[in-house]
């Protein structure tokens, strides 16, 4: 069990993430008010409330299906920059997980290496859509180190890998403080964008924190 991301854990991930978003809504909004337009918290809360409703409505058949649906719901309900970005990320992660792993016969791959590859697909989707590079002061600055940390620790199973990813995402979010934004709304502030954590990087830390919490059990 410790070594895989099954449907229950995927669901636990998303529910933990929804709870974290709700708990941190005001903080995310305040971060966004400082260098953006003050809606990141309410955007994500609205999106994950809708995601919870889809989870309650129908049980998912696989982790891949569950995460892909989560992504589609986010795209349909969030709006703003974060909606398409997180939505595409979860869709890409879900689709990657649903691709059968040749080594595992018909069973969808959910081992740590497959999860690492799926998370990398998620990051790639964010970068394809948004065009941000590390250092641009966006969610990528938390997402990229998290993916890398997960990959490096994949040999220890998803629980350990997720813990490492969560820690890296936290650090990545903190590392955005001195950065001058080059993408997204914060870029309009020029040098004044320095001195604040990027709201999307902070919410990405919530994403990986929730993954670690879901895989702990």
């Amino acid at each position, binding site marked *: 069990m410790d070594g895989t991301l099954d449907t229950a854990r995927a669901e636990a991930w998303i529910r933990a993430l929804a709870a974290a978003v709700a708990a941190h809504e005001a903080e995310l909004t*305040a971060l966004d008010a400082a260098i*953006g337009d*003050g*809606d990141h918290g309410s955007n994500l809360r609205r999106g994950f409330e809708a995601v919870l409703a889809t989870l309650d409505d129908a049980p998912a058949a696989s982790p891949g299906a569950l995460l892909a649906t989560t992504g589609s719901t986010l795209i349909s309900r969030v709006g*703003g*920059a974060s909606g398409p970005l997180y939505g595409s990320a979860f869709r890409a992660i879900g689709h990657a997980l649903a691709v059968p792993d040749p080594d595992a016969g018909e069973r969808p791959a959910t081992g740590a290496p497959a999860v690492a590859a799926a998370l990398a697909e998620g990051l790639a989707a964010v970068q394809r859509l948004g065009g941000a590079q590390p250092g641009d002061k966006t969610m990528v600055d938390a997402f990229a180190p998290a993916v890398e940390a997960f990959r490096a620790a994949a040999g220890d199973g998803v629980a350990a890998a997720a813990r490492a990813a969560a820690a890296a995402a936290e650090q990545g979010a903190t590392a955005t403080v001195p950065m001058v934004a080059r993408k997204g709304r914060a870029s309009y502030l020029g040098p004044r964008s320095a001195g604040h954590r990027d709201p999307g990087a902070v919410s990405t830390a919530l994403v990986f924190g929730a993954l670690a919490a879901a895989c702990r059990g």
Partner: protein
Amino acid sequence: MKKLINSPETLLADALAGVAAAHPGLAVDADARVVTRAVPAAPGKVALVSGGGSGHEPLHIGFVGPGMLDAACPGEVFTSPVPDQVLAAARAVQSGAGVLFVVKNYTGDVLNFRLAAELAAEEGIAVETVLVDDDVAVEDSTWTAGRRGTGATVVVEKTAGALAERGAPLEAVAAVGRRADAASRSFAIALSAATVPAAGRPGFDLPEDEIEVGVGIHGEPGRRREPMRPARDLAAEVVGAILADHDLAAGDEVIALVNGLGGTPLLELYVVFGEVRALLAARGVRIARSLVGNYVTSLDMAGFSLTLTKADRELLELWDAPVATPALTWS
């Protein structure tokens, strides 16, 4: 925060109920969050769809009607609409000649409209997009998000809308929209911050004697903070910022928009417009057409933006073409 709302969560739905009741010329699909003309354009016309976060009224809903938009997609306050909305709007108003998306250049708007365009293309709807990016307060480079779209949106929607009304094909309508955008520059100064209902307090704190220079329309702070000065000096700063980036020479004509950000009395906007006119006249630039009022607002923000569009005969003709929308009407 004191606002005439029932709750931040229901604000958009409640406002759309009011829009539906107030404007018999508009049809509001409350579920899809799409506002269209009550009487659709004749088939074969290129359809114009725009949208963006709410809080900028009358943009975009107020520009739906003959001569301008066919549909508007209002997002949550300061949040771009979702692709579903935009797709629903495109489906509702397209009649075979294709759809033009008028998109203000913000990451959120760009991404959501792009996803919608992909979905529309899958359904066989031809889509072109005009990206509005007129705000000279923001540096433009391929390494950044690029310039924001602000006041020029009105000029783009008006001119492209007029050309569509004449039966021009999609590419031509898109081309004139891009030309109107390329000919436009804007710059804004805020005297106070906007309060996003869901956030509950002003986006930034501004002392009694300071202003934010180079602000956007989403309550974000500006490029820098400066001491408050008389209207004449503020107008000079704004005109200077625009002219530094605009190839306007003596003898040129412009369409000028002095736009209130939501909390500024019209009386003050007239003062600013008078100063702008004098500053341009001193450089031999003539204001051929103008708007003074609240057109692209930022909730309750006090301040103004100036948009100057270098005008040629075609743009002026399209500007003068009849229009009948809640916020812009002439014949």
